[in-house]
């Protein structure tokens, strides 16, 4: 995935409420959010977290160095995209059909938000950053409260597919592992991956 660092930093500088995540987010962008190995994710997050504890200017200064260190042990982003992500692309595709039937009338056909909130793009990213919501919490909310006109009416598998679709539309990597209730706790929503929509 292309890394638009200048845009990223510009975006982060305007996001005053999330300044401590600037370093962490930047590192993630620099190594490529296409990284799909859970362990790699954890390592990156560890580095990112340590960076985020630094004062703001110092974090910026160390970004390139940290990024290089972070990337070295892993494969290139293009290869990572085919790795093991948080859901399978088949789940995401199946989730799109369910979303179009049950969710799009409120959230928009492109998840951009209408009567219901946006589920992709900058607005969704801001919402995640505000709420610090985990994937398990997001799944819990969706499966209990949605669709608004008939909450709880989908099957567990259908809700998981819808969540997979939401993840895919926000640039979270797909992979070989099916998203399940057991793997929800391993899905990392923040830092937000910064899809092309988010960088508009």
């Amino acid at each position, binding site marked *: 995935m292309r890394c638009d660092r200048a845009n990223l930093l510009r975006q982060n500088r305007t996001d005053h409420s999330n300044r401590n995540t600037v370093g962490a987010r930047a590192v993630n962008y620099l190594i490529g959010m296409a990284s799909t190995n859970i362990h790699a994710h954890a390592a990156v997050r560890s580095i990112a977290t340590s960076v985020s504890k630094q004062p703001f200017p110092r974090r910026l200064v160390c970004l390139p160095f940290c990024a290089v260190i972070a990337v070295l042990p892993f494969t290139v982003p293009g290869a990572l995209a085919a790795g093991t992500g948080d859901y399978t692309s088949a789940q995401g595709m199946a989730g799109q059909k369910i979303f179009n039937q049950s969710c799009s009338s409120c959230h928009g056909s492109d998840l951009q938000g*209408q*009567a219901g*909130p946006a589920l992709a793009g900058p607005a969704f990213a801001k919402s995640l950053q*505000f709420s610090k*919501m985990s994937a398990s919490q997001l799944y819990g*909310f969706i499966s209990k409260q949605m669709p608004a006109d*008939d*909450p*709880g009416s989908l099957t567990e598998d259908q809700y998981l597919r819808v969540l997979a679709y939401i993840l895919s539309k926000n640039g979270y990597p797909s992979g070989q592992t099916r998203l399940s209730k057991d793997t929800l706790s391993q899905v990392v929503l923040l830092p937000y991956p910064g899809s092309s929509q988010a960088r508009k």
Partner: protein
Amino acid sequence: MLYKPSTSSRSTSRRLAIGGAVAILMCTSAQSVLAQTASSTEEQASDLVSSPGSKSVPSSANVDVSDQAMRSATDDPKDWLLHGRDYSNQRYSPLSQINTHNIGSLVPAALIQTGMTASFETTPLVIDGVMYATTPIVNNKMKIIAYNAATGARIWETTYDVGTQKLCCGPVNRGVSAGYGNLYVATSDANLLALNAKDGTKVWQTNIADPQAGYSETMTPQIYDGMVIVGSSGGEWPLRGFVAAYDAKTGKQVWRWDSTDPNTFEGDSWKTGGGMVWTTPAIDTKRGLIIFAVGNPNPDLDGESRKGDNLYTDSIVALDAKTGKLAWHYQEVKHDVWDYDAVSNVMLFDTKDDKGNTVPAAGEAGKVGWYFIVNRENGKLIRKSEPFVKMNSNMFKAPTKDGVDILPGANGGAEWTPPAYSPKTDDVYVPAMDQLMKFTSDGSTETVPGTMRLGSTFVNVKNNGVQDGTFSAVNVDTGKIDWQYKAPQPLIGGALATGGDLVFTGEGDGWFDAFNAKTGQKVWRYNLGAGVNAPPISYEVNGRQYIAVAAGGNFQLNYPRGDAIALFALPEETTAKHASNWNWRKIFDFASSQSNTKQVKRVTN
């Protein structure tokens, strides 16, 4: 307040809307209806507020709207100056040119197409021949538009680019308020705008609350004594509601009253205990009181974490207008776990107490299904009405894991819908609904900032579930229902009463109805293609009385969407002979509709 969309097909809705629109055009072509074509292009968003190519209202039009004008709005029959026409929120126009004798001749005078198709709840204002209206939010834009109130011709429009918005109940806005040469608009992303009434340009803008947390604004602000007064929407999020007053000239906050009482909530639950104020307050100018309805506690449907009465949720509340301090309150539902808000506009009128004395009163049509009337001096209950909707034996039972089927459902009763009142009948006219809902506890009370926290679920009962509406004339002196119209669908939108002994309300299937205010007989109807789910108004321009109403459907009940504001009037050349020869009433089948009106013998003390 929370919506529960119906499960009917959207595509069906669209077909109905299109079909209805075609029908309108066919019916109105002979009547020289001005159908203004909406602009097909959206403006480029270069600013939060843009007014490209705006024209000004005629220089002869008075847009100042002084405090004196607002205080005496009751005595100005021509204009619809305030949200509820005057500070009483009675929505009573004394105009009588259109009356029970000639209502059959009422025809469309103009059909304004705003170009913004979505759930439409606006109450337009009409000031000196100029109509000011807000649209719903479509693609994150909302418009504020000025029209010629007689022809429907657009004078200016301003587009507001909406930022973050989190809405429970559709992309709605209920209208502008006017004062001191400005228009005031509360936006869905929780900002307050002041626009120049002449041309729609921005005067100032201030933030009311954090929309990311779940705060929003759907109400029309109230203007009083140099202040712009707003409540807060967002009762389904873990928030604390409030009412705040802002300096009308500068936008600086004057005072703020928070709507949850720590002494009546367990622990710290008052900090996110809900209590939103969704609808425009009434003003008791004699007593200097702002009187309004406060919505549900949060979590909506699970009270375990907020034990106590949870004041001032589900209450009628009066504040001192100068200070924002609490004057009195009356709580309709203690410790609510059914989303039984007090949410419709509070209305002021005089009533009789049990001893026959005239008492200044405030009334509110609750989602819980009664009309509550309290003493305006102290907030004490004078009476509550007969139920105006169905109530079943499960009412007030707590939601369970297996689910409980309850009437009224979580939409009421009476939703945000403002009723009307006629001093000629002493009746309040209340549109409401019967929706049998299953309440199921699911333990979802976890607090995630910026995320809905309902605590349970409710859903329309499928297969043989109750889904209908009522339009009730509730006598304020007795609490009895003088007459009631049974509608085939839940009613949401609003009512208008006029000096012509008429009351108007709309239905979700596109019908706009007029009733004899005294008898409940349906005397006229017109189908606008989209749901008529907004409050009607009446005004006069150049000696001609108009009835206007928005027809854009409703998100909460999934009624067919549209984008129109319809203006009705008697034909300009109307004579008694003409009216009798050209009687639209003949094309409608009244046999079935009249049979839906239940005549109730009026009881007096």
